[in-house]
């Protein structure tokens, strides 16, 4: 039992560090550091994907034959960890980390040939069409109709919480092809060309002012049956498989560690309510220490899951636990960042940040003035956007339901 990386792993870590030092331009790094949510600005993220792709590292988790890397799980973890520590912008998870795995497992040869190389280059950019206004946690209650019409399915209905719907040229979606006793049956997994006729996008303005989420309306949109993934009426199987990738195996702790360090840096410059530096204020110092401790412990939890996976195990319940622990911790850190920001944490100044989407109804000052520094400008936007952590990818209440069954047999 030990915490040390092997010599091979350390050599790999150095290789990743050298790459990041060389390729992560100051602008890209700035964009990564000033992200206001888990989503980087679209242009930046596409640019970073292009650079990664040049090196063959855009989709390391894919099978090698499709352009993935022949890495051990530890190497995947190291790559993810170093990228976060260096402040690299995140890539959109929808294509590379999600639907691609379903295409690899369930796709026809033609689907694989068309989509996989284009996802890698960024030519095909996916958004996700799962949730509907009346189907959130109860996803299988979805009702967007897909009517059989010769070679096509004709889709009518609406999807919501579609991140980057405006930027995406493809959507993977779950639609209802038939109704049966069991609501999980009769669902079909389709790939929809976002340039099809009959699609309308309505951006949702989030509390941060960003337009990153959308509601998408479908009015008799024709989807060729050749774009069905898996079998008609059996899309739930594909969706369940994909969910494992949505929740599983990532490394959240490095980004949280970076957040905690930034908070400490800001707090060292801020006055405490009773005089002196905020970082020396016992109440603040305790809360920060508590968050850092939880981050260190989360890192070990992540290592343990990684070690279990490397030994051929299945993440199972552990991925639900990691999701809950990491998102609750992240939310606690965003609260602390607000405190560290002081009075300037109440100033709305998205022009000093790199939001993941357009900001509506906001005129940046003509002279570019920023009150305080960028960390203070980022804090409230992250605080608002990070409420999503305990809601997305299966709310934390749903994760607790899963854990009650899977881990405790209740």
């Amino acid at each position, binding site marked *: *039992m030990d*915490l040390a990386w092997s010599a091979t*792993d350390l050599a790999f870590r150095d290789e990743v560090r050298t790459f990041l030092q060389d390729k992560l331009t100051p602008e890209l790094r700035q964009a990564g550091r000033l992200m206001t949510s888990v989503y980087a600005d679209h242009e930046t993220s596409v640019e970073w994907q292009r650079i990664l792709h040049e090196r063959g590292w855009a989709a390391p988790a894919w099978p090698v034959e499709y352009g993935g890397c022949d890495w051990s799980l530890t190497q995947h973890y190291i790559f993810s960890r170093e990228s976060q520590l260096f402040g690299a912008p995140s890539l959109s998870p929808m294509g590379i980390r999600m639907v691609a795995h379903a295409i690899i497992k369930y796709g026809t040869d033609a689907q694989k040939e068309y989509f996989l190389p284009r996802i890698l280059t960024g030519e095909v950019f996916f958004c996700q069409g799962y949730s509907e206004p009346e189907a959130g946690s109860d996803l299988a209650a979805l009702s967007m109709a897909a009517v059989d019409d010769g070679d096509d399915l004709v889709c009518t209905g609406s999807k919501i919480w579609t991140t980057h719907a405006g930027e995406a040229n493809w959507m993977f979606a779950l639609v209802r092809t038939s109704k049966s006793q069991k609501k999980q049956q009769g669902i079909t997994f389709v790939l929809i060309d976002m340039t099809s006729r009959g699609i309308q996008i309505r951006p949702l303005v989030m509390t941060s002012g960003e337009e990153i989420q959308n509601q998408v309306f479908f009015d008799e949109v024709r989807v060729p049956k050749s774009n069905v993934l898996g079998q008609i009426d059996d899309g739930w199987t594909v969706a369940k498989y994909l969910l494992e990738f949505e929740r599983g195996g990532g490394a959240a702790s490095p980004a949280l560690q970076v957040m905690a360090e930034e908070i400490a840096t800001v707090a060292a410059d801020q006055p405490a309510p009773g005089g002196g530096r905020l970082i020396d204020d016992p109440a603040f110092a305790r809360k920060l*220490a508590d968050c850092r401790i*939880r981050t260190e412990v989360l890192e*070990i*939890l992540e290592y343990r899951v990684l070690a279990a996976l490397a030994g051929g195990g299945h993440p199972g319940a552990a991925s639900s*636990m990691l999701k809950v622990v990491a998102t609750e911790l992240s939310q606690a850190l965003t609260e602390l960042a607000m405190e560290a920001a002081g009075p300037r944490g109440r100033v709305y100044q998205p022009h000093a940040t790199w939001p993941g989407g357009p900001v509506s109804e906001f005129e940046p000052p003509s002279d570019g003035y920023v009150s305080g520094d960028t960390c203070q400008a980022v804090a409230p936007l992250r605080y608002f956007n990070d409420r999503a952590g305990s809601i997305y990818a299966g709310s934390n209440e749903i994760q607790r339901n899963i854990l009650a069954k899977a881990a405790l047999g*209740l």
Partner: protein
Amino acid sequence: MDFNLSKEQELLRDGLGRFLSTRYDLEKSRAAAKTGAGWQPDIWRGFADDLGILGAALPEDVGGIGGGPVEVMVIAEALGHALVVEPYVDTVVVAGGLLRRAGGSAANALLEKVVSGSAIVALAAAEPGSGESWHDVSTVADRDGDEWVLRGSKIVVMSAPLATHLLITARTSVGLSLFLVETDSAATGIEDHRYRTVDDRRAADLVFDGLRLPADALLGEDGKAWPSLAKARDEGAAAICAEAVGCMRKVLADTVEYCKQRQQFGQPIGSFQVLQHRMVDMYMEVEQGVAAVYLAVLNLEAKPDARARAVSAAKATVGRAARFVGQQAVQLHGGMGMTEELAIGHYFKRLTALQYEFGSTDYHVSRYAELTRP
């Protein structure tokens, strides 16, 4: 990066688990703790002779097996799971570590006795004016010819009533030092008030009013005891974190089982979502506790600051977990959880007491904050 136990460590865990499940009866051990001698000497004999666990983490030159922190973790977790009151952590981990680092013939001779199960060693460090801070010591040791004369008082000296030997911290003209005393020979100079702790262990307050010790009672270098004491406290904290994990696993399993059996409103109470989520929160606290123990144990041989930081992170995490898991286990058991009729009440008491041993949760959060302050 490796979280697997070695073959030998697995054998150790399994052997000890089997021994405890067949020979360590909760009621019998409580009876011994409350009305008897305070412990079961035959169990200790079994630890030494049948299992060899007393030497598992001690060096081979004193008869041990030469293991380290991982062996201690494996043993302490198993002892916690069975709620063992016998003084493994006090004698083998804390005193054993101090003796090992002090070296010399007296220390080594005593370590051999620890390994063979014939000596119980207790550390007298906490004081009325300093609590668990072992650094602020007001007990003094003055040199008088060939002898040391100790004056001062110690509180809540764990296992003192069972001990054959005491390690006493005292300040000499040079600094913080450590003295070794055989309890029989010193009986005259020690005023001793024995009692039971809330978690059914034996301890005592000790007053030294001119306790005279021979020159060679000084263990290690005069005035240089602090680094070793600081390490002993971290080792003790890491060990009881592992013990707490053993306790919490048992308490969680019992609670889940109870909620599956207990019927109210015509159904098992474990079918209620509010209780399911509570138990999931307990589970996540336990799992974070497990990870925290790894963090501490695998950093015990690191540099002092790194070691202290990891141990404080672990003790704070486990302290928080022990409070939550213990309290919720009682809550979910209802009134029966507050009685001594079920195991849960006994485990709850231990999970409460250990939050304050080797530095409280608050102390460790503060120490962590200090060590990470920019």
